[in-house]
């Protein structure tokens, strides 16, 4: 058995030797270089573009502007499965180049040149004349009457508003003796910061367009390039090689349509579009900044009578993943701490900021920042212990969600909390840090989360797999789910080896995906890869095994029910005798003069289930009040992600998510000039991504309750580690200082404001 073992990554050797080829490494050096001209206003219209000076730069091949776009094919960009029902299709509001600009950084023209230098020089010589409109950067100001309107079809800039109404909130709050607790909690715009920037290249092959892209979702890229160019989808071929991280940014169609369009405008010559870091921050996608308003009505015994949530999600200028993110966070609210009377209003609102899309956690980190900060505030307001208050109100064992049919099968929350508390020595520290005074104080705090696994029943959930047997008894494994750094290929190989009954080195995972060859799949998002692929790997593996044993019956005359494959051998189960090797069988099958067969198997499994994944973070901080600085001393995450296929890779995955959560809680925010809408820190120096020095040792713990709906007992782990870290840090700061820092991150700016308001420090300007 390989499932459950910490085998080494199948791609590790290639990655430590530099042999792994990423998009730029594969691109032929004959490629022309494309660079994009971005708008330098936040809202308005391009009146004219003068390219005459730029065209004189030696090496410039062609300059194309928004006015050259003769056929306007509006396309959506979200990496969601397509819906054949128009009511459920993503909003198609993008063009490859646009005259109507809606944020500082919108795409208005592009230069194609023989080299980077010529392209960069030409960009600087293009003169643009704009008609400027007023702009709006604040999500609630954008909803006001008379605010600048981004899209005519969306009054008050509201992309979507959804509601949840459970019980009777208004009646419930009349109950005598209730304590009312209210808070506003806000998260900033942050960015994925995968180390490989987005890059793609395109060339024509006959009448087809061939795109190689650093993407998580090759089959979705194929569909949307087809839509954006107005050509049949079968004329698009998309290849996804190894990618240098994605984290959701590459679960969006970024510049593949523009690159493909540019290629077709110059006769099909190879064009490479390599996005610089500064543009990656602004012109790809970001995480939605969400402002949450929560009111809870609590009984003195520590139970909830009624609760209300209002969410205002800043979409930026275009719809991308849109309301899905805010809706997911809002949907978590009534489930994490169930209460009979709940009102939720979730709004996703356009502003003149960069476009927000998917990012690790998909709305849950923002929701947990609000909900878990608020939980701490409620516990404090009623004088309850925050740990006991959580234990009392958290989703109970046996809880079932009517929509997703998800069920809480085990006592995961308490088990995770217990394990995390032990790892960080919580009981001792929480007492030790009570009643501190002085400038430097320590505190310890916690937060929990739940996360779904996959997206059923919201949209299509299927996985396709192909296994092709080779003469030596090895087989290729092809699957629509993608390796994006998380280790999916390794987990797939482990599962496939177990199902078929071969040593793992006999499974060759085809990592590079090609929509002409790879079975259809909607790929890497929703922390679904191991879960959904598990079904099709098991189903296809059993199919392959059936065909192998069928041929073994021909060769050995033994009945199939007395045969099995073990460690790459055909074995007679009645006495355990090894009858032949799989290699002998496979070679005979291919070259037999009497009954030649190429043994393969391919199947699709449609997944009609989903699963709750659970966990928590406990963080310990030291706060220097006069310096307005919070330092993380210790942090632990504990997860119930079901059975782990590869514990070492699972632990590594948790480290990465925790790191992202630490940045979200303490340092990261993209800031904008109020006067112009211009981003001010769109580089890796001024945007404070956590470094080696900003982390203590990261502790990752697991509780392994097998998920009963799953083919291998697994459930989601990719995104969950990023969900509860930031509010745990916030609650540790609260424990240390008594000050509630409700705007993330808890950096010097926000701590200064919070400590000043609390009277801990005095602004002497």
């Amino acid at each position: 058995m390989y499932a459950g073992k910490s085998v080494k990554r199948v791609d590790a050797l290639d990655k430590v030797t530099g042999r792994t080829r990423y998009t730029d490494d594969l691109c032929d050096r004959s490629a022309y270089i494309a660079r994009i001209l971005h708008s330098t206003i936040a809202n308005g219209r391009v009146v004219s573009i003068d390219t005459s000076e730029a065209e004189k730069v030696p090496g410039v091949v062609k300059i194309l502007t928004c006015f050259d776009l003769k056929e306007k094919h509006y396309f959506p960009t979200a990496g969601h499965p397509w819906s054949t029902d128009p009511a459920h299709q993503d909003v198609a509001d993008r063009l490859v180049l646009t005259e109507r600009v809606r944020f500082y950084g919108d795409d208005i023209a592009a230069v194609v040149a023989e080299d980077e230098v010529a392209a960069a020089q030409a960009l600087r010589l293009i003169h643009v004349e704009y008609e400027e409109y007023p702009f709006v950067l604040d999500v609630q100001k954008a909803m006001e009457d008379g605010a600048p309107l981004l899209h005519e079809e969306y009054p008050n800039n509201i992309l979507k508003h959804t509601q949840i109404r459970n019980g009777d909130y208004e009646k419930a709050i009349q109950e005598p003796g209730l304590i009312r607790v209210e808070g506003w909690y806000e998260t900033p715009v942050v960015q994925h910061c995968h180390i490989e920037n987005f890059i793609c290249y395109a060339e024509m092959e006959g009448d087809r367009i061939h795109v190689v892209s650093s993407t998580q979702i090759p089959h979705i890229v194929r569909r949307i390039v087809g839509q954006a160019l107005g050509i049949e989808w079968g004329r698009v071929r998309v290849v996804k090689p190894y990618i240098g991280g994605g984290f959701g940014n590459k679960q969006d169609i970024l510049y593949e349509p523009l690159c493909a369009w540019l290629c077709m405008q110059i006769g099909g010559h190879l064009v490479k579009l390599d996005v610089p870091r500064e543009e990656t921050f602004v012109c790809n996608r970001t995480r939605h900044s969400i402002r949450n308003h929560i009111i809870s009505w609590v009984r003195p015994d520590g139970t909830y009578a009624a609760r209300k949530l209002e969410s205002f999600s800043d979409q930026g200028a275009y719809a991308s993943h849109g309301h899905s993110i805010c809706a997911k966070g809002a949907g978590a609210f009534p489930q994490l701490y169930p209460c009979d009377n709940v009102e939720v209003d979730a709004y996703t609102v356009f502003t003149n900021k960069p476009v927000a899309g998917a990012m690790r956690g998909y709305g849950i980190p923002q929701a947990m920042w609000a909900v878990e900060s608020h939980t701490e505030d409620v516990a404090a307001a009623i004088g309850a212990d925050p740990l006991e208050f959580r234990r009392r109100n958290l989703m109970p064992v046996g809880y079932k969600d009517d929509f997703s049919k998800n069920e809480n099968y085990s006592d995961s929350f308490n088990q995770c909390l217990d394990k995390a508390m032990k790892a960080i020595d919580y009981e001792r520290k929480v007492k030790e840090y009570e009643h501190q005074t002085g400038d430097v104080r320590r505190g310890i705090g916690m937060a929990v989360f739940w996360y779904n696994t996959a997206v059923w029943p919201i949209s299509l959930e299927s996985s396709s797999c192909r296994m092709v047997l080779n003469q030596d008894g090895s087989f290729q494994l092809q699957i629509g789910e993608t390796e994006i750094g998380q280790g999916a290929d390794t987990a797939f190989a482990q599962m496939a080896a177990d199902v078929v009954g071969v040593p793992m080195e006999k499974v060759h995972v085809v990592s590079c995906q090609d929509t002409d060859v790879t079975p259809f799949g909607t790929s890497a998002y929703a922390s679904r890869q191991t879960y959904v692929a598990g079904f099709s790997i098991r189903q296809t593996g059993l199919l392959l095994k059936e065909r192998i044993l069928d041929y073994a019956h021909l060769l050995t005359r033994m009945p199939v029910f007395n045969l099995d494959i073990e460690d790459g051998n055909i074995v007679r189960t009645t006495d355990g005798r090894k009858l032949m090797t799989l290699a002998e069988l496979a070679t005979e099958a291919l070259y037999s003069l009497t009954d030649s067969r190429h043994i393969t198997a391919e199947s699709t499994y449609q997944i009609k289930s989903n699963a709750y994944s659970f966990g928590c973070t406990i963080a310990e901080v030291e706060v220097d009040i006069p310096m307005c600085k919070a330092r993380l001393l210790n942090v632990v995450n504990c997860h119930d992600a079901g059975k782990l296929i590869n514990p070492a890779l699972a632990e590594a995955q948790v480290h990465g998510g925790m790191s992202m959560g630490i940045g979200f809680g303490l340092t990261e925010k993209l800031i904008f000039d109020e006067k112009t809408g211009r981003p001010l820190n769109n580089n890796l120096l001024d945007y404070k991504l956590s470094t080696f020095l900003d982390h203590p040792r990261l502790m990752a713990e697991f509780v392994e309750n097998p998920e009963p709906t799953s083919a291998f007992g697994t459930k989601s782990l990719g995104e969950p580690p990023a969900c509860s870290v930031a509010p745990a840090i916030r609650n540790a700061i609260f424990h240390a200082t008594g000050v509630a820092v409700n705007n993330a991150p808890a950096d010097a700016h926000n701590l200064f404001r919070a400590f000043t308001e609390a009277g801990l420090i005095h602004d002497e300007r």
Partner: protein
Amino acid sequence: MNKQYKLVRCTINGKERETMVDVRASLTDMLRNDFRLTSVKKGCEVGECGACNVLINGECFNSCIYLAAWADGKEILTLEGLEGPNGEISDIQQAFIDEAAVQCGFCTPGAIMSAVEILNEGRELSDEEIRIRMSGHLCRCTGYENIFRAVKKTMLKRLAAASGNRQGE
């Protein structure tokens, strides 16, 4: 504008090389484009992320902000240069595999080169020193935890081996 070129003669991964470079080209450009040493990655091209790190005369540099022209007469080591003639990998590369310090792999080559610089000093660094010395590398996948473990374990192994050798003498 007429381009200006300069002849660069240097040693790359133990072999003597020469090439004409545009005087504005970075060492990253030269290594990737002229010699196809694609382990040298581009993550920011302004010296912020460390993905392009290589050793120049034994010292680790961001090759993206080091002019190719400056490489004249220098000895350059990239990740490709760590491999033995029969594809043997070095202890630090093996440690990155064993400690699950590799995820997407994009920051890996640069991080390994900084580790090589540290390990070649042959002394024991404190945890804090290792963190400071590795802090020029940005990684979004690993949280640095397993990279730290790989570097520290390899350092301790080498020191133990060195002290074993001394005792044997």
